[in-house]
């Protein structure tokens, strides 16, 4: 029940006071309620749970974290960090 998944907003419309979006989850599209994330625009990614978007994915934060982790990985590759020992 905690599992929420990220998807890309393809379309957004107001339907009888509810904010309904069409969201793409890696090829499968679903209707999602965007009422809790009204600032989400077409092209944004949102985290969706039980048919509702709960947050707008912060692309910059995500990119920053991934970049940091990639750097750590690159350093490890070059032997500048301790090597991962194989499973004992």
């Amino acid at each position, binding site marked *: 029940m905690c599992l929420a998944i990220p998807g890309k907003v393809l379309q957004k419309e107001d339907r009888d006071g509810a904010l309904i979006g069409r969201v793409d989850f890696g090829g499968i599209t679903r209707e999602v309620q965007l009422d809790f994330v009204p600032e989400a625009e077409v092209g944004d990614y949102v*985290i969706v749970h039980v048919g509702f978007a709960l947050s707008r994915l912060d692309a910059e934060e995500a990119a920053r974290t991934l970049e940091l982790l990639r750097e750590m*990985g690159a350093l490890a590759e070059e032997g500048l960090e301790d090597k991962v020992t194989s499973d004992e």
Partner: protein
Amino acid sequence: MANPKIKASFGFQLLTSDTGLRAQIMKYIDEYRDATLARPLIAEIKKRVTRPWVLMEICGGQTHTLMRYGIDEVLPPQVELVHGPGCPVCVTPLEVIDKALAIASLPNVTLVSYGDMLRVPGSHTDLFHVKANGADVRVAYSPMEALKIARANPTRQVVFLGIGFETTAPANAMAVWQAAREGLKNFSMLVSQVLVPPAIRMLLKSPQHRVQGFIAPGHVCTVMGFEEYVELSRDFHVPIVVGGFEPVDLLEAISMLVAQLEEGRAEVENQYVRSVARAGNRPAQEIMVKVFEVCDRKWRGIGLIPRSGLSLREEFAAFDAEKVFDVAAQDTDEPAECISALVLQGLKKPPDCPAFGERCTPANPLGAPMVSSEGACAAYYQYRRHSESARSKTP
């Protein structure tokens, strides 16, 4: 549907097997399953750790990721993971299941529920069997679908089984709000919402607990923010890191916790920055406050935790299935062998249970943690942690 090959540790076949099964790359998922990002995190943890630490991930979804990707097996042996009560299906009280069963068995009632509630054992039966015997039980992925069913079937009473943590509460609140706005006469919700921080507080007050650091549930915090955890961290001097659900997220959260513990710090940090803000989601919190109020709640296996649940406010009484249906509480009856209470509090692990994998399996569950997609027992079973080494380190 577990493929034992996929389970085999972070053996780096992983990313290929995962994407091999799908045509499309899933953005914001695949990057966080990337073995090349996992390796330096594992190395970091191994380098930092100088003594044993017991960590608890709170959410069942996180337990499943840890098991599925073999994270418990690649961590250094000093880092022990115990599993928390963050499986809403597992903690739904037996009384609620029994009530749902009684309601579903009434004429002209359509009971709508999330899929994994169907096989959760009640005192005598479960929704799946009741459905097999002719009751109108339907599976939905959203409470809004239950509303649709109510609108389409005005002569039937439609009841939605509204269980969950703070993650599902905004959607459930919205469904009731919408029903009230439309003046729907045939829709109600059987509410069993629970809140995470009171459960953690209770756990920390228990003299038997061994947890030294927590991974807080990333989607609960997406809704609620993490202010409440600051208080917990301070009161009990325990580090808490808000974590996501992919293997790289959990490894990063574990790395942050180990760093705090090794340095003697006890703070709240946020690993899941791409989804969680300190204040959480305001519109979601607002609808929750409009529709629900805090109440005492019973947690299956654990017992009553004061102010740990949500119930519908008085003005929504017409949509409260507890009030709409007069179903008396029956004598509830837990199978004697099930140790789910101890598993949910991180005091025992599933393989410690004598019934695990033998008398208790997903096809024939004795308790909720074996049947729920977020249950610890189901995770251990599915990802094959039957061995001696998977048992608790304490008797």
